[in-house]
């Protein structure tokens, strides 16, 4: 459905993306992961026909994303990463505008009502009076209500609280069940992990890897922090097979790839004052690719 072949787009100041190739099959979901400024949004801008590539070919459903951009948008729904609305409109005015610029059919209005109720948004409020989270919800509704076969979402959950992030993921899974193709950029591995079959990792404009989520899980590192009671415990920990980084005194950071068996074995031999798992961060999860 989405084909990107040897795509290069370099801005005047030298930033951009170089030689990116990827493919997203119809009905599957692709997560695009990478730090800020890696080139995720630039890739999406090319897909949406906002900017022209320097070289390479980018198509959605065999339509060229630059030459046939109007055709592409008949089958694509888009959520921008930076949300800027016409601030003097109310939520309902804005959604009417987007629906009107598509087909203004009854189905869109039905879908709108469903998503408004799922995300619990008051559409009568002027957009300029909405909070960041409310604006994010409005953007999500405008993208999902169109029932397009391809969804391109640029960091869709930024600004949403954890509860709404969960609701969003559930909505995306529902869309996937309907056979939609999904291209989603994110900083959050957990979000991609739950919704996508494949993930691409981009850094400094280069696509480092495209792997299935199950492959990535195997390569994924989990990080823990432990504080042991005595020097003897610290010695025992050092003698184990674990990847240890001392912080201070009896405190260590443990990085574990794949299965956790070795960790449990080592922990059984020491007395721990404190033990906690660090939140899984993208940088940690994909450290191997980043190095």
């Amino acid at each position: 459905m989405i084909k990107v072949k040897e795509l290069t787009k370099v801005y005047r100041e030298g930033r951009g993306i170089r030689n990116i190739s990827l493919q997203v099959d119809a009905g599957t979901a692709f997560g695009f992961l990478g730090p800020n400024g890696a080139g995720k949004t630039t890739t999406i801008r090319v897909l949406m026909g906002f900017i022209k590539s320097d070289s390479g070919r980018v198509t959605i459903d065999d339509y060229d994303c630059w030459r046939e951009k109007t055709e592409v948008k008949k089958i694509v729904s888009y959520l921008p990463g930076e949300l800027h609305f016409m601030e003097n409109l109310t939520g309902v005015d804005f959604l009417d505008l987007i629906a009107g610029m598509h087909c203004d059919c009854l189905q869109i209005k039905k879908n709108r009502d469903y998503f408004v109720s799922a995300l619990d948004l008051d559409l009568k409020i002027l957009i300029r009076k909405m909070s960041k989270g409310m604006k994010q919800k409005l953007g999500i509704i405008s993208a999902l209500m169109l029932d397009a076969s391809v969804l391109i979402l640029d960091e869709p959950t930024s600004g949403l609280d954890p509860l709404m992030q969960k609701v969003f993921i559930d909505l995306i899974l529902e869309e996937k069940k309907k056979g939609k193709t999904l291209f989603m950029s994110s900083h959050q591995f957990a979000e991609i992990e739950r919704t996508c079959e494949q993930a691409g990792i981009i850094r400094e404009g280069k696509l480092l890897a495209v792997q299935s989520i199950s492959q990535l899980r195997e390569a994924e590192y989990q990080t823990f922090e432990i504080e042991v009671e005595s020097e003897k415990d610290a010695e025992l920990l050092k003698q184990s097979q674990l990847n240890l980084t001392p912080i201070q005194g009896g405190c260590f950071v443990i990085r574990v790839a794949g299965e956790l068996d070795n960790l449990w074995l080592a922990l059984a031999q020491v007395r721990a004052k404190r033990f906690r798992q660090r939140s899984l961060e993208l940088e940690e999860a994909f450290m191997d690719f980043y190095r």
Partner: protein
Amino acid sequence: MNRALFRAMFKQYRKKVAAISTGIVLYEGLLTWVYPVIAKNSAVMEIAESIPSAVKTVFGVPENARTDTFEAFISGQFFARIWVMLMALYGIETANALLAKMVDDGSLAFLLSTPVSRSEILSTQTGVLISTNSILVAVTIFGLYFGTFCSGIEIEHWRYLRFGILGLSFFSLIESYSLFFSAWFVEEERALTYAAGLTLAFYGLDIAGGLSDKLSWLKKLSLFQLFQPQEVLEGTTDPAWPIIGLSIASTVLWYLTKKVFETKDLAI
């Protein structure tokens, strides 16, 4: 032209148009109310005639023009300077807000993600610009009809209508080059600076050219030479050719804007 977009954009500007329209009508009401008093006072007319031509030029009164007519009064007090600058600034600011600002702040991303082509979006935004411009011109002309009727001032309605059409085409050209700069720079500040700078340059040339005979050639470089309210209202100049010329220039500029906008990289 996309109907949904036109409706939404028009809704955004209707309050502004209503406010400017109210201001115009009230000011015209004031001018038409005081004119009969001034016209009866011969001393005021003598003062007006004794003003040097260079000073008259600053207020938009052409050299050797009459000063004892309502057309001279309304041109000097309103059309030649206040109205033209008000309308020009409205056109520049609105053209900028309808394109460059929306690219700059990213709000165009939602519109461009719909199956409406860039040229259709541009034509809709132009439609909003021209229609609000038309409303302001129509309010100005009909407001004056009303004011003169209430004050018992006799005017040639047809000449005022032709003057309205001239105003519409004149401001359309200013809006067209403002849109062009918006599409070219896709950056609010630069587009606004160039459009306002060019208009002020034309305005400055018009004023400077009237200050002395030596500088009169400067007037020929100014777009404002095509907009001579008093002469059109008194019937001493036929506005047909300026209207045609301005309209052709606007159309050509719009076509260029469309070409530029269709191929421009929009980092939104």
